[in-house]
């Protein structure tokens, strides 16, 4: 298994930068975020808005209302080279306690958020799925645990794009 990746260092730097930007914004809009960010709460609707976002930061914000920090307790498994961008096996798991949600993002796609999973009490913090990737780029896993967000990233090379044609 080739676990999460060499890109973690670059990701964490980026997340830190985004974090600074978000704090600035949150100073104004913080209250709203606190109200809308409770993705893990029961009986919420399909997060239509989060799935429409183009950037990683906007998608995470729309989904959770906060920003993520890189963590080696988020394990992201994806191939180095995808056999085909139409079907990229991606799995995410975490050793963090109290995981309530796992989201997977592909910033190179037209819409960044690919899937968001609610991990209910008693459910293992693990999910595997198959995703489309338009081109080479990072896959980002975000895990919500104990009310905070943690992330990991891995670059997947896509030589045959997954957007058809």
């Amino acid at each position, binding site marked *: 298994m080739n676990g999460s990746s060499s890109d973690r260092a670059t990701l964490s730097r980026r997340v830190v930068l985004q974090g600074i930007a978000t704090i600035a914004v949150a100073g104004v809009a913080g209250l709203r975020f606190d109200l809308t960010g409770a993705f893990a709460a029961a009986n919420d609707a399909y997060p239509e808005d989060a799935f429409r976002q183009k950037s990683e930061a906007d998608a995470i914000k729309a989904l959770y209302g906060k920003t993520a920090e890189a963590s080696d307790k988020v394990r992201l498994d994806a191939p*180095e*080279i*995808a*056999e085909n961008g139409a*079907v990229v096996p991606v799995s995410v798991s975490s050793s963090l306690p109290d995981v309530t949600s796992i989201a997977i993002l592909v910033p190179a796609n037209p819409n960044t958020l690919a899937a968001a999973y609610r991990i209910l009490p008693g459910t293992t913090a693990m999910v595997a799925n198959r995703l489309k990737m338009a081109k080479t780029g990072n896959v980002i896993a975000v895990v919500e645990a104990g009310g905070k967000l943690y992330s990991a990233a891995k670059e997947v090379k896509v030589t*045959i794009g997954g957007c058809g044609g």
Partner: protein
Amino acid sequence: MTGLAMAAALIAAPSFAAPAADAPDPAADLKAFQKYFRDKFPKVKFEDFVNGPYSMDEGLYRQWKEKEEFPPYEFALDLGKELMAKPFGNGKTLADCFPNKGVGIRQDYPYFDTEQGKVVTLELAVNQCREANGEPPYSYVKDEMAAVTAYMAFTSRGKPFDVKIPDDPRALAAYENGKRYFYTRRGQLNFSCATCHVQSPGERIRAEVLAPALGILNAMPIYRSEWSGMGTTSRRFTSCNSQVRGVPLKPQDEDYRDLEYYLSYVSNGLPISGPGARP
């Protein structure tokens, strides 16, 4: 213009003296063919040649194994089973046309039909059955045809290819024609089937890892990620032709059936592994 460059290259190519025609000897061909691949890939286990590019590349192998946990051809298998048993207008079924109701017989196709005087592939046999019972033929390339052949392959998994060349000059001629088709360069890229699948298996062409010709049909039909769906041997042949920029023949054209006859024969002994999954 690449086309013109190609034309120039063709014209400039030195003309080799063609080897003298020798008597056809399928058994010797089979031995040489299988030896070539064993020698070229000493680390690949013989039975693994049926797994195409996955036998040649570690990263691909892992992705394949992950997909096999719940393979994408699952739905085709169920549909195939249903279609085999579904009564035609006259009450008969597709299964009635085949020995042992079509179960566990994939390895015997294609065969040379001495009455029809031609090679009958599994796909042709399916449509001959439908038409003989007053039903319209299936499309040769996907959907129902892929589903029923997937089901027949699945029930034959592990059985070694057992294609026979009867003592009939027409059968031998069909075999030789298939071999000719396999090695003949065509299309603007000037590739033969062998260019990719004999000389370069395991290598990447653009993004794809090429499958070895040995065992390539054992996995048919296949779910290709590139197609986002199932495809038959017919689909594989026609798409190969287009990829080298040649206009494909009609599915189940005599040349294609003979090609399938040749390629299946030289893979005799390797187990049926279809339906397969391919990038």
